């Protein structure tokens, strides 16, 4: 099947408006006869569920957590971008569009990104109307901060809990519709398959995680808002339950999976401390507004710091290497995430890592504390030369801005980041790749939609900070409600979809077969045993820096591990009860397939772009020496993989990316 992205014709700034003016609509009376299933209740799924219910559709929403409010969007810290230009610093729809395409290393679809930038301002209006308590200035207007990869302040925030506040906004909009009976909410339900009838997505099979009951649910369309697949690395900043299963089942039913190798490794996370670790914790990118990243210049100082004989703050300024400021003077500590992560790895690989494992760099707030302290002393008419006073005042300012993050750090690491620099290291955070969708956010399966992090469309090969929240809400509140109507207008006479058809029965039987296998297999190793092994392969060979040898090895090692998993996995308990190990087994089984496709995709893409860095694709000379080298001639396309059984048999389809409104050039932050 040839890929048709269905991008509307016309100038980029008119595409979305023209599109909305010409789609088919469903009248309010007919909407009452149409059912929509939404899987996942994060920013994308939650906002879509609320909006479609408001429009009059019958929505059934599903989440595996005990409440829709727990979806992992809740953990997003820093903020949400919007081209409001409230700061008057030259922001515009075009500039947000440009920054996002450039930040994504020219591997996203122009038309989708422009639409995203276009609706971004509306998101802020909507959220304020819903009662989301964004940070404000003393005059009562909304405050902004800066994020990486841009030269304006367009990020709206609510302390370090922006995702929480936005998700609770979407959750409240959902609650209103649940109360009205327009959304039927299924908590603690996991989707285990998509059901296709006559080629169209018409339902899902779920497992009730409390009773183990397998259920059939039908609808006229199915929407996946099920998040990213970062947990394929075992250790990531994702929640423990975050998984690829819904997206992967869709893939197996015919939805192409796009750019699986585009993964965001976030530069500022708390380093791994030991084998017991179950997850990694992010320290928001907003900290790079005030924190400066450094390692010692000389190896002797690295050794002294590691042994404890030298305290980091005692090291003289001239003996420190603020490597981001040195390499990227224009953007300094606020370079995009992929660039900052690679630079940290480069220093640590060269032996300059500052903790016991050699995998940590400093994020230091001393300069900011001093700067803010002096400022406050000046304003209050106090002595600016009193070092102790300045420090105290400065620490108060920092506490107001980042208090919750500093507290999190202190609880985990048991060190006080006000008085000693934080230690940070990159960790898997977000996946730009995902289910392929067209301009309508529909997958290659008619009637099956994919929104938010679970799809691939807006962030290219690298996502800029504060853009994930923007995309999730844009898809759910403002894009899908239009595009899905155009599709559903054909279904006004269809009537309810029966669940007693052969298609539903077959899908259910297949699900049961797999579950039965797990609980009767009685192997030697727990699910986590395999998940951790997979994570190690992914991190070591498909992580921040990739080469042909490593990727080839990863493919065969994952294949072997998968075979071992299906022989030796051990799942205690039964099907007919709450059984977390059983749920985990199904998720890891899917990760074991995705992981191989991920490595295969990385092997195919013989260029470096965004989060995908190939050691054989770097600039060899000139000002950009050592930086990632993109190959637009051969790789300016989206890799969309078609399922054919084993991941090794997956067939590659290319969607060529055309850049008409932005000139393709080397992404420079120097």
């Amino acid at each position: 099947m040839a890929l048709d992205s269905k991008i509307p014709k016309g100038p980029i700034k008119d595409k979305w408006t023209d599109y909305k003016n010409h789609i088919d609509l469903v009248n309010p009376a007919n909407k009452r006869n149409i059912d929509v299933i939404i899987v996942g209740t994060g920013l994308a799924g939650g906002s879509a569920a609320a909006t479609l219910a408001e429009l009059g559709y019958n929505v059934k929403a599903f989440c595996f957590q005990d409440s829709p409010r727990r979806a992992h969007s809740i953990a997003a810290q820093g903020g949400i971008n919007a081209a409001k230009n409230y700061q008057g610093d030259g922001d515009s729809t075009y500039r947000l569009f440009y920054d996002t395409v450039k930040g994504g290393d020219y591997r996203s679809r122009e038309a989708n990104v422009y639409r995203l930038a276009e609706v971004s301002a509306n998101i802020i209006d909507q959220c304020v109307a819903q009662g989301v308590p964004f940070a404000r200035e003393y005059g009562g207007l909304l405050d902004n901060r800066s994020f990486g990869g841009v030269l304006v302040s367009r990020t709206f925030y609510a302390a370090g809990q922006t995702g929480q506040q936005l998700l609770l906004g979407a959750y409240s909009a959902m609650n209103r519709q649940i109360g009205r009976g327009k959304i039927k909410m299924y908590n603690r339900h996991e989707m285990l398959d998509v059901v296709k009838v006559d080629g169209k997505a018409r339902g899902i099979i779920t497992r009730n995680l409390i009773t183990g009951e397998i259920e059939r649910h039908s609808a006229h369309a199915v929407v996946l808002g099920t998040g990213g697949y970062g947990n394929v690395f075992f250790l990531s900043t994702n929640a423990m339950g975050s998984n690829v299963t819904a997206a992967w089942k869709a893939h197996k039913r015919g939805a192409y999976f796009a750019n699986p190798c585009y993964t965001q490794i976030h530069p500022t996370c708390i380093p791994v401390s030991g084998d017991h670790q179950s997850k990694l914790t992010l320290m928001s990118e907003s900290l790079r507004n005030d924190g400066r990243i450094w390692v010692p210049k000389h190896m002797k100082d690295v050794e002294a710091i590691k042994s404890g004989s030298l305290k980091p703050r005692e090291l003289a300024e001239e003996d420190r290497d603020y490597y981001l400021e040195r390499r990227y003077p224009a953007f300094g500590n606020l370079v995009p995430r992929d660039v900052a992560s690679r630079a940290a790895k480069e220093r640590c690989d060269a032996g300059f890592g500052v903790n016991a494992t050699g995998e940590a760099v400093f994020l230091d707030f001393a300069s900011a504390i001093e700067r803010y302290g002096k400022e406050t002393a000046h304003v209050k008419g106090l002595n600016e030369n009193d070092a102790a006073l300045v420090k105290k005042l400065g620490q108060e300012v920092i506490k107001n801005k980042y208090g919750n993050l500093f507290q999190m750090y202190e609880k985990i690491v048991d060190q006080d980041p006000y008085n000693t620099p934080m230690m940070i290291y990159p960790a898997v955070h977000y996946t730009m790749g995902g289910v392929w969708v067209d301009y309508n956010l529909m997958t290659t399966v008619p009637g099956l939609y994919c929104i938010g992090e679970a799809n691939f469309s807006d962030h290219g090969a690298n996502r800029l900070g504060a853009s994930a929240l923007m995309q999730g809400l844009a898809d759910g509140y403002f894009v899908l409600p239009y595009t899905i109507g155009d599709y559903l207008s054909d279904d006004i006479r269809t009537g309810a979809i029966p669940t007693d058809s052969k298609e539903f029965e077959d899908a259910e039987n297949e699900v049961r077969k797999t579950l039965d296998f797990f609980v009767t297999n009685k192997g030697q190793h727990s699910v986590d045993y395999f998940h951790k092994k997979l994570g190690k392969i992914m991190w070591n060979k498909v992580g921040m820096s990739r080469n042909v040898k490593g990727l080839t090895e990863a493919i065969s090692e994952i294949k072997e591990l998968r075979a071992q998993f299906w022989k030796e996995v051990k799942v205690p308990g039964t099907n007919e009860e709450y059984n977390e190990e059983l749920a985990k087994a199904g998720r890891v089984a899917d990760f074991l397939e995705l992981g191989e496709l991920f490595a295969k995709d990385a092997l195919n893409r013989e260029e470096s772009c965004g989060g995908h860095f190939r050691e054989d694709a770097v600039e060899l000379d000139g000002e950009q020496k050592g930086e990632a080298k993109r190959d637009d001639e051969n790789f300016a396309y989206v890799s969309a993989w078609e399922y054919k059984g084993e991941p090794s048999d997956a067939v590659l389809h290319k969607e060529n990316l055309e850049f008409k409104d932005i000139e393709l050039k080397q992404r420079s932050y120097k």
Partner: protein
Amino acid sequence: MNMNLTLKIWRQKNASDKGKMVDYKVSDISPDMSFLEMLDVLNEQLINKDEEPVAFDHDCREGICGMCSLYINGEAHGPDRGVTTCQLHMRMFKDGDTITIEPFRATAFPVIKDLIVDRTSFDRIQQAGGFISVNTSGNTIDANTIPVNKHDADTAFDSATCIGCGACVASCKNSSAMLFVGAKVSQFALLPQGQVEATDRVLNMVKQMDEEGFGNCTNTGACEVECPKGISLENIARMNREYLAASLKG
């Protein structure tokens, strides 16, 4: 130094099972582990011995989703302050300790299995009025049209940081949900956008709270002490004022 510990854990097969405390031993626990990572170690041990692992709720493991619970040594989220169980670290304990682990107990939080309880009563309270009835069409006024006093906005934010974990209910001798409900009522009461429906909101939410079987507030203040997000008793006082005003309006 790594620790050896005795765990007394509530085991209950399902909602209709009676349930009992069972003793377990774990060894070589690193002080850098989180409490839930310590339970992961126990579960790995149980699986390898062909025993059933202990069921507990958890997800984000960074203190924000509100999924984890646990009543540890008689305190919701354990002995540390301002943290959820997933942020509680084993350095709070010492070698040889015995740790008692129970589910959050309340009539409105029935046990599902072992340490997992059903908190959907919280969702139903929110469904009764924890929202502003504005459609998500995007056709609202510009976000900066109505300035909001910074102090009010910050206070509304503080209320809105409630994670809905239920520690307040578990800590209260009356199993009252006043702190949880008060936080949501306060968030909207402090913002101009919340004024239009203020009367109905507080009446409907309190009515639902009572129907779910939560107890009354007798101002003991245990909820505030145990709240991992520091939601203050002010929220309860504000809700009471809102409720009184709404009742008078009728």
